């Protein structure tokens, strides 16, 4: 179970990333943020976001056109 969940369904690029960045600030170090999105571009974008910012993309999956990402807040 994630510490926080962000519902980014229906949002298009770059909103899921921008909202996730904001939400991540509320997650304590070591905590996790779950993001739900419908933007197919978010799959590549959240991987790039995590590589660049040093946060850990613990898992990502898709179920019935809903993309789910779990990010661990590991960066400063």
């Amino acid at each position: 179970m994630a510490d926080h969940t962000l519902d980014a369904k229906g949002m298009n690029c770059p909103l899921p990333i921008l909202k996730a960045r904001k939400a991540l600030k509320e997650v304590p170090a070591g905590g996790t943020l779950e993001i739900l999105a419908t933007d197919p571009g978010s799959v590549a974008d959240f991987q790039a976001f995590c590589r660049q910012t040093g946060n850990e993309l613990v898992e990502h999956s898709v179920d019935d056109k809903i993309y789910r990402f779990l990010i661990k807040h590991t960066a400063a």
Partner: protein
Amino acid sequence: MSSPEEKSMSIIVTKGSLDWAYPPFILATTAAAMGLPVTMFFTFYGLPLLLKKLDLQVTAAGNTAMKMPMMGMHMGLPNLLTAVPGVDAACSVMMKNLIKKKGVASIEDLREMAIEAEVRMIACQMTMDLFEYSTDDMIDGLDVGGAATYIECASQSDINLFI
């Protein structure tokens, strides 16, 4: 500016139509969200994107290959018709409807998020003189400067874009 290991970005914003306002604001907000210090330099037709009240329009004549999804197809407009009065207004309404329907942020929202993310925005002094704009008409928190101000910033940035 930025520490040696930290990447940074600058964008020269030269276009002020509704469609062309998107790339600079999308890239600036995203780069800031990814931890890059970002500077935007607004010059010529990009400068009015800093006005307090935005009234952005699509310019059909400036986008000769523009097509919009309509009735299951992609419909273009004969380029000759793009000069007809009212065509830009109609295209702008269609574009704004599409933006809303597809969950794309408005330029107003993206600009607000850029400000929140502490993106540095520089208004070009020469353009302000040329087109008779005053900082009173513009949003707060702007720097005002010219080419040298931008070049100093660009020389310290890893990514420099001209849009």
